[in-house]
């Protein structure tokens, strides 16, 4: 089987499976699976070194959700993650949810850095920061504080 470079939070490993063992980076870890690992989310047991670990896992697009012994982890395949980040840039100045513009943090003409919060949306009790997709300047701000917006409404334009 092919090797996958997986990440979870700050951790990354190249993981390769072969019959009866996994290679985690350069370390060979013998293991045995009980249960149907081919069925997404089905409970399985991973036996390593005589210890039984209960697990359930499934892949959803680029992400892999894993539950092991009562703890939950989210993994991503690294090259896919890079692709997704790049494609995000086209749409992320659209309102991600219906809500109210709680705060605008920039004005037209302001220079902005990638990741800088531009405005704060509020829906129910949660606040959600809309951030600059790249370095540039605010060309237009299309909403004002207090405005109600639907999902998918354009909020601002950023020039490069």
């Amino acid at each position, binding site marked *: 089987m092919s090797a*996958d470079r*997986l990440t*979870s*939070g700050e*951790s990354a490993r190249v*993981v*390769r499976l072969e019959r009866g063992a*996994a290679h*985690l980076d350069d370390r060979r*870890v013998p*293991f045995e*699976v009980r249960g149907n690992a081919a*069925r*997404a*989310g089905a409970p399985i047991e*991973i036996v*390593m070194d005589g210890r039984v*670990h209960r*697990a*359930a*896992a*499934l*892949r*959803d*697009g680029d992400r*892999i*959700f*894993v*539950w*092991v*012994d*009562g*703890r*939950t*982890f*989210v*993994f991503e*395949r690294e090259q896919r993650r890079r692709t997704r980040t790049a494609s*995000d840039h*086209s*749409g*992320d100045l*659209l309102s*991600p*949810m219906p*809500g109210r*513009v*709680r705060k605008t943090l920039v004005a037209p003409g302001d220079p902005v850095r990638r990741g800088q919060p531009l405005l704060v949306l*509020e*829906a*129910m*009790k*949660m*606040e*959600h920061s809309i951030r600059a997709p790249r370095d540039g300047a605010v060309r237009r701000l299309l909403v004002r*504080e*207090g405005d109600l917006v*639907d*999902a*998918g409404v354009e909020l601002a334009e950023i020039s490069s």
Partner: protein
Amino acid sequence: MKRLLIANRGEIAVRVARTAREMGIRTVAVYADSDAGAFHVKSADEAASLGGGPPWETYLSIPRILEAARATGADAVHPGYGFLSENAEFAKAVAAAGLVWVGPSPRAIETMGDKLRARAVMEAAGVPVVPGSRAGSLGDADLEKEARRIGFPLLVKASAGGGGKGMARVERAEDLPAALSEGRRLARAAFGDGTVYLEKLLEGCRHVEFQVFGDSAGNVVSLFERECSVQRRHQKIVEETPSAALDPKLRAAMGSAAVAAARAVNYTGAGTIEFLVDRDRRFHFLEMNTRLQVEHPITEETLGIDLVRAQIDVASGEPLPAAWRDGTLAPRGHAVELRLYAEDPVDFLPRAGKILAWQVPEGPGVRVDAGVDEGSVVGLEYDPLLAKLVISAGSRGAAIARARRALSEWIVLGVETNLPLLAETLESPAFASGDYTTDLVESLPRSSAGEPPDAAWIAAALAQNAGSSVTPATHEAVDPWSAPSGWRAGA
């Protein structure tokens, strides 16, 4: 009451429907069209569409909800919490349509919803309030004078706000004028009313609330406290009862104050008086929630009662049960509630997705009030609360051990949740000691789930390889929520 319309969604709609069914009352769910397949719709006897659109055109639309009641022949409305539950206009409209309103009088809702007026009414009733500006002080000059009297740091709060919404912290006198004008602008935008007031910022406090209940015969009782100090961003995530902060004397004093507060507005039905308890163990009225509270189940578990049943009985004109009125009702053991949110475990921002695997904890002393099921789609347009785990046991220590056991059984795959944060909270020495304040969550290490063990990497690799051969179905199923606007959750 024969047919109860539940004007809500999520776990609370499911919870209300369960009791109604036990009472032989038919239940009517309402839903926004995007929620047609939601769990709360399946849990009711019948369901009525509120049409499409954002929340203010569906679950927050009084005309559409009343139309649904007419169309289904409902004779009563339960508002749940959130949405229209504390909207006096809705309460009036329900009554005007000839339906039974399962909640307090519009007048009580109005008085308590105006936080400035509520403070004045509480002071008049002899209930201690958080030190703050007087009701008549509204202009900058007056408020600056009041600020000197109260002292810094203080909070600028929106009179029409509440629940941790619409407030800003001010450290120094010179920052006050800007904070006032900013606060008024935000309050006008968010609540349609720019009135603000000042409250002393009490630090190192515990947030302790009392469940109260009134009936139309004028009986008002206290049903003891809930400790709600485990919060992030002013929203509660873990609650427990009894509170380790109270001794019998303080509990009795706060219970009496809570009853006095509810009496002052002739309160009927279920309500909650929120207090701050400071380092010197003095308590101060914060606000009243004129509805069923999210964390009401821990009171039900320690008292062995059903608050929704009592709400329905009181709304139908019946008096409170005798055991509530004669003081024989006493809490037994300990209960803890843990709220499961769809959110990023590290930055706490809401997450969307589809729940692809869902297995809830079971066993003695474990109750799960869930608003979702396997296959449920979690969007960002509503509160991200997925479910509440309610644990009861003979003692606080046993309840915490049981909560840890139950959390470790909970399998949620497909959407990120705050499960790691809940587990960390239970593990923290401050929570274990019972001696914690509203700063608890901030003091926890803000790690995610931590370094995955070897078995997790192996399970991930197995799923990655299994996925390549099986997943078209899984993949397609996720598209409906991700496709329309092309954005990414939490971006």
